[in-house]
């Protein structure tokens, strides 16, 4: 009997709880919870996928998951990799002359195994347009430009060092691309088994050994840990490989930042809706207590409701999240690979954790305090007494946050900025409103301002929530725009994609005229004079430079010098100033490594002649930009009289390919480096990243807008009684609408304006110190954000006004 009683009681509790959710008491809480779960599921699923795609893109660029680069062969590493279950492939790389019957050319020889590349795509096209993807013994594959440079055809013989090999075909696409035209000589691919025949590997010859690894992340980490790096050895991974790595690491940071911001916004709404729910339950709890409900019973009553709501929110949120991720992916369909990596169960675990960590304190604290409601409230409304009960629940999300984001400086920067700004925003908004109220206004506006002033605490809370959410939305958008802007700036669409080197002085004028005649956008022509730096302030390099610095590029080989009347406008002068005579401008990393300063005297050897110049400036050079760049640029008087060849970079599109071929034919001695394929690859990667970030930012903004909408609706609902009373007393729809418009409108505009300024300052610090990019000011946002806030007020007022205007029944 006892058991059946209990079970019938439980059934009723369950029914009751379900109805509480359906009939609107709990739906705002559930909506916020569902939104959190949906956002976290969708964003983290997408993040996992985009991350995997970005990582695989990055790995395709380096041809492996991890690359070991060394000046000496390292057999021990290979056996270690084998023990760790890693796949490996070796490459030996050197520069040598290639001789055809008609010509010769300095080339980069990559001697690879058949397993190369472990990641990314190698496309080789043979005589009958037969495509293959790996290099076999006795094969020789050459860059397309070598066919004209060496005046050879597929099937002809080519001498590489001592070896004579038959050209198997041309290289259409290969991984391991670089953007430095001076380091990218035309390359040829041979098989590792043919390497000894070339006789290129001798004592003292400059050879680069690369070992590629593919396998589990843990094994790769273990491999790196097991090996002690020697001088001139380094690991290359997708995270430290130049431009694509920079792109990827910043995109990843942006991903996690967006997730944090969306969660933050949803949390604010959850907290507010939970407090609203707890407030709306005070009368019921008091009534139940007056009827003799024990605390234990009430606890069970609340737990059943909250439990049901959580379960429903998790299920519904997961479902919406899956659909949302699908929707988010639609625009990416063409650029994402067909076989997308799965996201597994992690997004759901993560979403559940986040929902619990935020939901427990958000709902737990007001509910624990709700249990303390005095039964006397049924007879007399009581002033709520401030309580600190349940505060410890706040530790949960804080501890989790530290655990997950402990190392992400970007997230911490944003958070600490937000906390400070939260106070500043709310109070400055309030101060602005206070100022406004000192002026004379119409009746509706005066009423609105006086109400805002009267309920100071509530107004400040609302302003903080409103301006905080607007700030996050603005920040997500600004950050995306600035990141993309920076990337597109360093690699704009009109970037040069062809470099012409070795232009003889006699050809220079004609060559440039040919380009100009065809309306080709080109850089100025630069003289190229090869030489070495030999002494600093009269002291020989080997005596003055620290031994560990003597291995840097600038010192161990001849490098390219140029002269100019002015420095290129894309090189920023960091120190000093350009002079007319006897001067040299030094690139900043070289200046730093060799401790060269303004006014230092440098000796160079060019063609067995010594030239001396005084350092007049230190320059920043972006080596990733596809522009001619130099370590040393001299004033004309120093080296202009020395024999030189010329270099020019220009941009051609696909329709101008015949012109390129013609240039190749007409000027066979000029080396043409065609970066079109590489450039396209980078542009494609950029396009993918731009899409992903835009979609994510879009989602962030949409969820932020939804949350602000919920906030406004909630706040309007709380005003229901008051407005109903006005209506009952006969206030016209117009008067009520006007007052509400004024009150919420003025709040929205002020919050929007303050949020725009706040977002601008966070964005500024993030760009400058977080992402280390150039910050900019966005005046348009100062108008767009208040306008957006006004639109949201309009939408929420429109959706609520009918209900609000019903008179008392």
């Amino acid at each position, binding site marked *: 009997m006892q058991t*059946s*009683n*209990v*079970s*019938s*009681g439980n*059934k*009723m*509790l369950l*029914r*009751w709880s379900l*109805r*509480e959710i359906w*009939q609107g*008491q709990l739906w705002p809480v559930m909506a916020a919870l569902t939104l959190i779960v949906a956002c976290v599921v969708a964003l983290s699923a997408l993040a996992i996928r985009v991350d995997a795609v970005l990582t695989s893109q990055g790995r395709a660029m380096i041809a492996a998951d991890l690359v070991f680069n060394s000046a000496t062969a390292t057999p021990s590493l290979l056996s270690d990799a084998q023990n760790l279950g890693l796949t490996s492939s070796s490459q030996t790389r050197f520069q040598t002359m290639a001789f055809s019957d008609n010509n010769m050319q300095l080339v980069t020889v990559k001697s690879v195994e058949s397993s190369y590349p472990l990641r990314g795509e190698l496309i080789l096209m043979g005589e009958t347009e037969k495509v293959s993807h790996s290099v076999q013994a006795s094969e020789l594959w050459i860059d397309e430009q070598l066919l004209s440079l060496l005046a050879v055809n597929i099937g002809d013989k080519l001498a590489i060092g001592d070896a004579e090999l038959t050209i198997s075909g041309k290289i259409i696409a290969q991984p391991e691309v670089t953007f430095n035209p001076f380091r990218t000589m035309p390359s040829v691919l041979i098989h590792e088994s043919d390497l000894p025949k070339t006789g290129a590997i001798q004592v003292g010859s400059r050879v680069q050994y690369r070992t590629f690894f593919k396998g589990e992340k843990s094994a790769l980490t273990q491999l790196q840990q097991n090996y002690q790096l020697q001088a001139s050895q380094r690991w290359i991974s997708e995270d430290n490989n130049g431009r694509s790595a920079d792109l990827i690491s910043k995109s990843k940071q942006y991903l996690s930042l967006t997730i944090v911001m969306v969660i933050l916004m949803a949390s604010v709404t959850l907290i507010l809706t939970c407090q609203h729910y707890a407030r709306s339950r005070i*009368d*019921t709890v008091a*009534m*139940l*207590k*007056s*009827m*003799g*409900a*024990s*605390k234990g*019973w009430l606890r069970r009553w609340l737990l059943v409701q909250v439990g049901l709501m959580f379960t429903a929110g998790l299920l519904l949120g997961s479902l919406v999240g899956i659909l949302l991720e699908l929707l988010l992916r639609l625009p990416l369909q063409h650029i994402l690979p067909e076989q997308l990596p799965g996201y597994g169960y992690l997004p759901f675990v993560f979403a559940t954790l986040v929902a619990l960590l935020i939901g427990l304190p958000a709902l737990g604290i007001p509910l624990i305090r709700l249990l303390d409601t*005095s*039964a*006397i409230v*049924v*007879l*007399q409304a009581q002033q709520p007494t401030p309580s600190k009960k349940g505060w410890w629940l706040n530790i949960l999300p804080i501890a989790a946050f530290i655990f997950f984001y402990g190392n992400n400086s970007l997230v911490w920067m944003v958070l600490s900025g937000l906390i400070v700004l939260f106070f500043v925003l709310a109070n400055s908004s309030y101060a602005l409103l206070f100022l406004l109220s000192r002026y004379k206004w119409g009746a509706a506006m005066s009423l609105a301002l006086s109400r805002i002033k009267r309920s100071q605490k509530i107004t400040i809370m609302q302003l903080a929530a409103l301006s905080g959410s607007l700030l996050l939305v603005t920040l997500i958008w600004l950050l995306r725009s600035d990141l993309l802007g920076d990337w597109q700036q360093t690699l704009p669409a009109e970037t040069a994609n062809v470099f012409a080197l070795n232009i003889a002085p006699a050809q220079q004028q004609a060559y440039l005229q040919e380009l100009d005649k065809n309306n080709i956008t080109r850089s100025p022509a630069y003289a190229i004079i090869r030489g070495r730096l030999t002494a600093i302030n009269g002291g020989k390099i080997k005596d003055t430079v620290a031994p560990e610095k003597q291995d840097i590029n600038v010192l161990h080989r001849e490098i390219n010098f140029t002269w100019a009347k002015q420095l290129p406008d894309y090189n920023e002068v960091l120190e000093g100033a350009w002079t007319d005579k006897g001067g040299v401008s030094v690139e900043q990393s070289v200046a730093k490594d060799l401790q060269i300063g303004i006014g230092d005297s440098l000796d160079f050897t060019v063609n067995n002649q010594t030239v001396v110049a005084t350092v007049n400036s230190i320059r920043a050079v972006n080596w990733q930009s596809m522009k001619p760049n130099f370590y040393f640029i001299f004033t004309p008087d120093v080296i202009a009289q020395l024999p030189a060849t010329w270099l020019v970079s220009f941009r051609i599109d696909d329709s101008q390919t015949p012109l390129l071929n013609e240039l190749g034919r007409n000027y066979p001695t000029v080396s043409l480096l065609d970066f079109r394929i590489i450039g396209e690859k980078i542009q494609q990667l950029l396009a993918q990243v731009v899409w992903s970030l835009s979609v994510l930012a879009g989602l962030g903004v949409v969820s932020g807008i939804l949350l602000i909408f919920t906030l406004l609706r909630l706040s309007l609902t709380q005003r229901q009684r008051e407005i109903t009373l006005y209506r009952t007393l006969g206030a016209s729809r117009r008067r009520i609408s006007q007052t509400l418009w004024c009150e919420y409108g003025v709040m929205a505009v002020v919050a929007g304006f303050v949020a725009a300024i706040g977002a601008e300052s966070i964005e500024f610090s993030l760009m400058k110190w977080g992402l280390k990019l150039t910050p900019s000011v966005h005046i348009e946002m100062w108008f767009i954000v208040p306008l957006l806030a006004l639109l949201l007020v309009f939408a929420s007022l429109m959706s609520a006004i009918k209900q609000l205007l019903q008179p008392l029944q």
Partner: protein
Amino acid sequence: MSLSIIKTVSVCKSVSSNEAQLSILNDISFEIFARERVAIIGTSGAGKSTLMGLLAGLDSPSSGEIELLGQPLSQLDDEQRAKIRSESIGFVFQNFLLIPSLTALENVTLPAILRGEGEDIVKAQQLLHSVGLSGRETHLPAQLSGGEQQRVALARAFMTQPKILFADEPTGNLDEKTAQNIIELLFEMNREYGTTLVLITHDSNLAERCDRILTIHAGELQEL
């Protein structure tokens, strides 16, 4: 000699307001015996509801002692007082206080559920029948008129056959005719279940129908 159901000795209640003490009830002492019908009358703000809250153990006096069903309330904690209410006390409120998301029938079964007795649907149906609401069992409060809601509240109050029924201005929100019907019903059920009735009202005609009338004026209690 009848059994003393409620006994108050020198009960005072004051609240702090703007750092000053405001006295609401002052030295109140009286007894209410089993099956008595007692009206407490007074003007608005005289302290009637405050006194009812104290008598039902919903609030605690600033000084003095209250015995409810032979138990000194000052020696009981919140949970023990709640237990007494769930076992022996029924309430009817001015604004009905039904749960909006529960049907009429479920609202009536609620006190039994709070006692851990499960849903006694048959009894709840009988009670609804006796207040004239047969056929309205599945209606939600919003689908009922004010008078009908108060009937449901009456049925709910008698669900656990309480020893005491506290009625706080039970007709305060109803029109005259409906109020009359509700009062008839209240007294009839009170008689039928042999309950002690404590009725808070400002209506002297209604008070006249009770066995005793206690008046509160400026925190002082007098028996008429």
